[in-house]
């Protein structure tokens, strides 16, 4: 729904438009006349330089729902129990029941109710988002402190608390994106305007 599912590692420019890309390479003047895609524009101002490996490392990971960006490493539910107790329980409660930090468990089946409880388990559509968010933003007071394996472990523990994975499951770059979250199909595109358009608006009293 939101775009191609597996972009990682694909030589996009060559494969997706192979049919006419070659033609453009052979006949650049015609390409110019036909409207040049952004990709073939030469840089105009010449500012900026290629990012250094250090800069790219410093940016850290960003994880796509198909798992693109997940680093090596692995964590079990048992590992995660220890990580959670040491790093997460202070704000989220020993069992993820919530305190200063958000409640992380429960809420399944409440989204249609008058008091919906939106947790990782009941609401989040992708397990990759859990890894990404824990990795980039947690622990709250020292984000970036966890190793990739500790993040996998914390994610495994939270998913297990919600009954989404088993006690013996291990999360890594292969298993995490394959986790099916309960609310995976619960998201729909923006449907506005759903008010305020003349045909549906309340009659004007002017």
């Amino acid at each position, binding site marked *: 729904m939101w775009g191609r599912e597996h972009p990682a590692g694909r030589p996009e420019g060559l494969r997706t438009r192979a049919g006419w890309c070659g033609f453009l390479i052979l006949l650049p003047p015609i390409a110019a006349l036909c409207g040049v895609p952004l990709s073939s524009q030469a840089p105009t101002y010449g500012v*900026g*330089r290629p*990012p250094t490996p250090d800069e790219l490392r410093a940016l850290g990971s960003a994880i796509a729902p198909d798992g693109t960006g997940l680093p090596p490493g692995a964590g079990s539910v048992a590992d995660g129990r220890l990580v959670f107790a040491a790093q997460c329980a202070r704000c989220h409660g020993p069992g993820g029941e919530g305190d200063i930090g958000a409640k992380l468990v429960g809420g399944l089946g409440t989204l249609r109710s008058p008091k919906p409880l939106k947790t990782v388990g009941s*609401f*989040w559509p*992708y397990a990759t988002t859990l890894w990404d968010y824990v990795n980039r933003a947690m622990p709250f007071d020292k*984000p970036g402190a966890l190793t990739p394996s500790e993040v996998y472990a914390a994610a495994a523990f939270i998913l297990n608390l919600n009954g989404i994975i088993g006690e013996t499951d291990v999360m890594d770059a292969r298993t995490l994106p394959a986790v099916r979250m309960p609310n995976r199909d619960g998201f729909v595109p923006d449907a506005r305007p759903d*008010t305020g358009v003349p045909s549906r608006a*309340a009659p004007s009293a002017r």
Partner: protein
Amino acid sequence: MGHARSSRRHILRLGAAAGGGLLARGRGLAAEGPRSLGAPLGSYGERSPFEKAVRFTRPSKTPETGSSFTPIQDSLGTITPSALHYERHHGGIPTIDPAAHRLVVHGMVERPLSFSMADLRRLPTVTRTLVLECGGNSAGEWNAPGADVQRSYGMVSGSEWTGVPLALVLSEVGVKPGASWVIAEGGDACRMMRSIPLDKALQDSLLAYGQNGEAMRPAQGYPLRLINPGWEGNANVKWLQSLRLTAQPYMARDETSKYSDLMPDGRTRIFSFMMEAKSVITFPSGGQQLPGPGLYELTGLAWSGQGFIDRVEITLDGGRTWQQATLQEPRLPIALTRFRLPWRFDGHEAVIASRAVDETGYVQPTREALVAARGTNSIYHYNGIKFWRVGADGAVTHVGA
């Protein structure tokens, strides 16, 4: 609650006191005798010590993740002073040295590039006056309309932003075919991340570094932020350090778990970026006190994420009849638009509200229409009509659900 935060009220009080010769420190028009010199010149100006308008900061167990609200009841004109711009932070306000800051544009591009602030400042600039509204502004209205305008409608501000069109930077790096999203990440502690459709980035997104004639404030993203005109504040990523071109959105926490709209059927609208037309009367508004019957200028602010405000209609009788307010010109698209209407308060109770219509013909809905369409659990993107009750005694209160 709702007491005396209004300098407007302060001025009314001063006006009432003027007849008694009580102007501050006896330095009124009638002062006699030798005059002492004023203060010397200064290098960076401060507002008058008599001006007291401040942001309201919502109490938070973790102050770094709080939100603060612009005192729009004290706002004059259409620009919000940078110091009073609303705030919403997810990991505190970082201190970033612009000389060390980089923006890395990478992913599905021909030439990944790292830009210094000096690089970006060499590029052609544009300046746009725009409204910026938090996606969660007025969230409380879904369940219980708020008592005063600052806390219920104050996560909105207007600024003049200066920066580089993102489209220009994207042409410098060369977007590869197949890329359709831009993943923007901030340099704050939590590395706030949002997925932005490439179409928007090519249409009118800005890489802004200037706000209201100077470098933007740290709380607004210094030294660099993304500006997506008309879109919810959170998508205007502050402290911008990474733009990653991809073929899919990254389903970040702040676009799935947050800033999404849960509907009564249990499904959730996602990527509902645009802020629909909205308006609110800022004077008279909840918590203010009119000194008595007489002629007043009713005023407020209107805006739309879709363009110009076409008109603002005012009711003085609880929604039975509506009349058009005067709009301050020049009107700018996707910008705060000031409306005004002379109004004689005759000492009888009046229930007042404003209703904005934008250039697309979209009419600001009632709270009831919004609740009918979305229930009361969607939190974000509330833009309902706000009613105030001016009592016979001149006290202004909110109208509850």
